[in-house]
């Protein structure tokens, strides 16, 4: 084992973590906003699927992946609004509504996407920053990627700023802590929750689109393969904080990339045990810092998790 192989391995895993963690990260970022507003979207997987499917269809028909990305975001936002209809206007159970929407997405995307399986698209291009990309080891990892890679940090920063530095964010967080207090303060919880759902859906749609437009460049039914659920867990792992969601996204993405990089070097390790790691880690983290996190949880979520919403 030379330094060169170790470095190239780390480089491979890092790039892989970014590539495969990006979709989870964006979805989690959106979910942070939604949960901060007091709603748990268990159908986030469906939101991502809708984004992936819509994006792929538009890319296939127009040949422009950037337009496709926009449409995917809007599709995700619209999908989340349906959840809003059920959960905000009709006051239905959040978890059941989320799961229902998940199945809705499975069915809808499989029908609409059926004609597009096997089609080829122009995916998002790989961009790179000219001089920086040549820095050894770090360069190709950090300064090369598609547009969604470069917008990851800014997106997290934006969401952080939105939530913690604007009046809108404060109102939103108030709604998430207590609707009653928010209403009494003259805010409109319903309207704010709808807005949160829409924005969260935009990001969820982007997360899904990253899979079909950039990572795999194909459309297959249920291609998100559980990433949406991972993202929901990730939000709790990151204690509802947008920037910490990056770390979580990279961790999950890294686990996926790690075992394939190991295989490429013919190292023996069970991919299944490795795949378990992120989930077990999340539970462990939640346990160790659990009590702290419970205090950090938006209080409005407690009734959802208690089953009494």
């Amino acid at each position, binding site marked *: 084992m030379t330094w060169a192989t170790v470095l190239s391995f780390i480089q491979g895993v890092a790039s892989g973590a970014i590539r495969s963690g990006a979709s989870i990260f964006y979805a989690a970022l959106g979910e942070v906003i939604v949960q901060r507003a007091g709603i748990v979207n268990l159908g986030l997987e469906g939101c991502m699927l809708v984004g992936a499917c819509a994006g792929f269809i538009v890319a296939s028909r127009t040949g422009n992946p950037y337009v496709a990305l926009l449409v995917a975001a809007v599709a995700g936002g619209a999908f989340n609004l349906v959840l809003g209809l059920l959960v905000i206007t009709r006051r239905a159970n959040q978890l059941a509504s989320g799961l229902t929407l998940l199945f809705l997405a499975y069915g809808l995307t499989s029908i609409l996407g059926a004609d597009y399986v096997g089609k*080829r698209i122009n*995916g998002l291009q790989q961009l790179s920053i000219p001089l920086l990309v040549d820095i050894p080891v770090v360069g190709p990892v950090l300064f090369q990627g598609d547009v969604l890679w470069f917008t990851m940090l800014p997106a997290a920063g934006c969401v952080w700023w939105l939530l913690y530095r604007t009046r809108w964010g404060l109102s939103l967080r108030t709604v998430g802590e207590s609707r009653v207090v928010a209403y009494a303060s003259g805010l409109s919880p319903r309207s704010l929750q709808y807005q949160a759902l829409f924005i969260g859906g935009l990001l969820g749609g982007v997360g899904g689109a990253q899979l079909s437009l950039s990572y795999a460049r194909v459309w297959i*039914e249920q291609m998100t393969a559980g990433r949406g659920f991972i993202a929901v867990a990730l939000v709790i792992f990151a204690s509802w904080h947008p920037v910490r969601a990056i770390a979580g996204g990279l961790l999950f993405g890294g686990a996926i990339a790690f075992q394939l990089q190991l295989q490429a070097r013919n190292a023996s390790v069970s991919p299944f045990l490795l795949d378990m790691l992120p989930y077990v880690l999340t539970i462990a983290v939640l346990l160790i810092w659990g009590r702290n996190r419970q205090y950090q949880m938006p209080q409005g979520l407690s009734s959802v998790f208690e089953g009494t919403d």
Partner: protein
Amino acid sequence: MRFRWFSLLSSAGIVAALFLTPAQAQTATLVVGALHVGSVNDNGYNQAMHEGLLNMQANLPGIRVIEAEQVPESADSERVMENMVAQGAKLVFPQSFGYLDPALNVAQRHPDVIFEHPAGYKQAANLGTFWSDTTSFEYLMGQVAGRTTKTNKLGWIIGFPIPNILTSINAFQLGALSVNPKAVTQVIVDNTWVDPAKEAEAVNALADNGVDVVTMIVDSPSTVIQTAEARGIMSMGFHCLCAQNAAGDHWLTGVGFTWGPLFTRMAQQVMDGTWKSTNDVGNLASGYAALAPYGPLVSEDTRALVDTSKATLISGELQVFRGPIYDNSGRLRVPDGQIANFEELLNSTDWLVQGATGQIS
């Protein structure tokens, strides 16, 4: 209570509709059912099967084909097969490896229905198996890869490490070795037939490791080929000649199944009553598969070499699995001068040939 009346009325309406709608008359000469594990538009395995069925239908008018896609490889597939049999299917193609045991169960319950399973290793009185010897093609592909690679590192991405796939990899590596003694092949196992994200990541991992020609046996070659193209490495296709649709300049060549004539013959035999359960494995000359057109990077010399090899393979002068063949741990698997039994290889290979490495067990 408006729900009460509404639901009563609508239930009555539905029941009435069911009784009043006349049954559809089916007049087909033969009803053929087929189960696919993926989508028939995957530019790969399933599409090749689908095109074979279409070809059969074109050759034998009056045949009705019912297909089901995305059928899981578990006991669920039994339900689908039963459904097809209930609709009158007399010939069923469970078109994926994992359908073998469920198909045997259904075959036992319906002795009058014929089943044909690809790459199966067990037969029954009414269940036969078929496959195409793609190893000769793989050998030729290996030769192309061996001559075109600049790094001498070749890569394979596979769904499951089953014997017929390992035999293909071995044939490929032997072909590469025959023109380039320094060639090595790295195998990555996905543990699933369809997972675009994993396939993309696998290509990246191989490319990070210096591989510059990659090929695959997963359901759809599209992701692998496109990701390879994006990374600037060369790729070869498998399963369907249409894989080329996904390719760009870095496409070398590929192997595609051409099942049409075989399916037509089977259907004809079922209709004539002359069908017998066999393990039908076609070879290079049978026409169950074909080599795909070359890409721009394949030199004229290489094409000429492949033509020569093809001729000597057909004539029998050149044998892919003629010993001595050692596996990658140095053990002698095929003694000097002997030619390995092909069917045995297809059914029981659990080793990789010298120069090929991967986590196959």
